[in-house]
């Protein structure tokens, strides 16, 4: 026995000793972010040394990044959710109507989060109990909630400007100095989701359910419960992001959320979470989201038209994906243990 289990030579490489090697992918994503920042800084040094540029960026970035963070869990499960923009609007509508009826209290936020939880529950049940593929199920709920919102509002926006300055308003989207509070919420949510994913049993089950559902089931993990819980968490977080976006704009718009669909999904993908599931990181998504936001801010700051934004987004997504494939390939070649 002893002879046969001699350390394969690949294992003698310091691969697992260096933190840089272990987090290669995350470092690559961070490098892309820093490189882009340097490029924009070089083109427009005054714009990018002005703190208000970052205030502007961080006041809107959360609406893409927050739903992307919980979407990372969904994608790690090997599933998808197209309904979260509608759930963002649903949460925002529930808050708006509650505030208009009962005044601006935490009740509105509580009901908004509950609406998100219920919307997530519906997605989870459709996917697990009825075994409808998540792509199809969430197209259904995407239309369902958006339709519900349009019927209720008749397509009209609802102004919320009168609540500006109230403590609850400031607590959600106020400013601490020049720092938008919503970016602090984003960091808090990212930290909580990161801790759960890496250090909690639930996070481990999310990974296993996405990586090998049959194995997870065989080993006694209730994968349906995991999937439903993830969709519920994602629903509540999307609703929260919707509330923040609405309060930042001080108006509820029935079309709220639609622009975040592709951006949030792209944040997850750029961040190194493959759609095949089983792996992925919250850190990657956070930086992925920042990359997309930086491109928007940067392109406007360097003075070219906003039409360039999509083009550069596309380019960066493709570059990031190629980089990920290359990193994974080289890892595969390096690590394979052979007899």
């Amino acid at each position, binding site marked *: *026995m002893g002879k046969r289990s001699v350390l*394969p030579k690949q294992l003698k490489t310091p691969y697992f000793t260096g933190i840089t090697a272990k987090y290669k992918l995350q470092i690559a994503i961070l490098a892309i972010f820093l490189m882009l920042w340097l490029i924009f800084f070089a083109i427009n040094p005054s714009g990018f040394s002005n703190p208000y540029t970052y205030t502007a960026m961080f006041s809107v970035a959360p609406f893409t990044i927050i739903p992307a963070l919980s979407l990372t869990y969904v994608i790690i499960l090997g599933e998808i959710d197209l309904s979260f923009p509608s759930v963002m609007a649903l949460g925002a509508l529930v808050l708006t109507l509650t505030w208009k009826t009962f005044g601006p209290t935490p009740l509105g936020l509580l009901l908004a989060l509950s609406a998100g939880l219920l919307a997530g529950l519906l997605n989870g049940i459709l996917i697990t109990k009825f075994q409808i593929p998540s792509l199809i199920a969430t197209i259904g709920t995407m239309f369902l909630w958006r339709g519900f919102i349009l019927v209720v509002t008749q397509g009209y926006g609802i102004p919320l400007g009168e609540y500006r300055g109230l403590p609850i308003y400031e607590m959600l989207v106020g400013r601490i100095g020049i720092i938008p509070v919503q970016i602090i919420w984003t960091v808090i949510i990212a930290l909580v989701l990161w801790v759960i994913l890496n250090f909690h049993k639930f996070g481990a089950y999310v*990974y296993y359910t996405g990586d090998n559902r049959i194995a997870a*089931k065989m080993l006694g993990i209730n994968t349906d419960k995991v999937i439903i819980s993830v969709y519920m968490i994602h629903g509540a977080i999307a609703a929260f992001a919707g509330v923040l976006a609405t309060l930042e704009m001080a108006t509820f718009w029935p079309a709220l959320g639609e622009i975040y669909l592709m951006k949030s999904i792209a944040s997850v993908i750029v961040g190194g979470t493959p759609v095949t599931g089983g792996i992925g990181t919250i850190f990657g998504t956070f930086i992925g989201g920042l990359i997309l936001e930086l491109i928007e801010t940067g392109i406007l700051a360097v003075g070219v038209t906003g039409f360039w934004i999509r083009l550069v987004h596309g380019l960066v997504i493709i570059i990031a994906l190629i980089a990920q494939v290359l990193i994974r390939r080289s890892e595969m070649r390096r690590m394979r243990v052979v007899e």
Partner: protein
Amino acid sequence: MPEEKYIVETVNLVKRFGDVVALKGVNFKVRVNEIVGLVGDNGAGKSTLVKILAGVYAPTEGEIIIKGQRFKRLTPRKAYELGIVLVHQERTLSENHTIWRNIFMGRELTGPLGFLKISEMRERAQKLLKEIGLKAIPPDFPVKYLSGGYKQGVQITRALCFEADLVILDEPTIQLSLAEVQRVLEYVRELKKRGKSSIFISHNIYHVYPVADKFVILDRGRIVGEFLKKDLTPDDLSHIMISIARTGRVPPEYREINLISS
């Protein structure tokens, strides 16, 4: 050890999939610290039988007795709790994750509020890997980079870690190189040394023969033969299997040593 001490026993187990009857009243027994080689052609019902024992399928009729407790059906979790672990060809591994995570998969050691005791799990994994002869592999190594034999080793280490009493090895040597097959057979011997019972399913009787104490032959949903290793050579077993495949019966010259009276 008293002879009647069985770790698992099935009573008239029947399993139907629609019109197809996969098991037709199977009475299958495994003694404590026994390695049973479960052999038979494709479609004989081997996998169906072990999947019922592992709680993956519910039997249509019959009973399962585990350590004296009677069950109409099991769930994977229940089987797991009763100490039955299924080792599948790569199928019960989360390939993208580390060895230690795989060893504790589904039975993580947790502290307050469900947080993982990572360092404790890593240490225990390292100790167990060392015990089974995989000491050279760091527990932080992702399973996907391991070869087939090492992967089986990880699954068997998991069984040891959970103090499994019965380890079911479903085709553990399929697609493995010769050296790797030997490695897996070593793991199985190690399980026996530790007092565990195993069911070893294989198409290849030359893989199962060296480690098994007893051979049970399934044919089209029925147990047609049960032989002790001391009564047979591998060639005998091969001869019996071929004959069963052709005629559905154990050849007359082996009927005396067949523990199943036909």
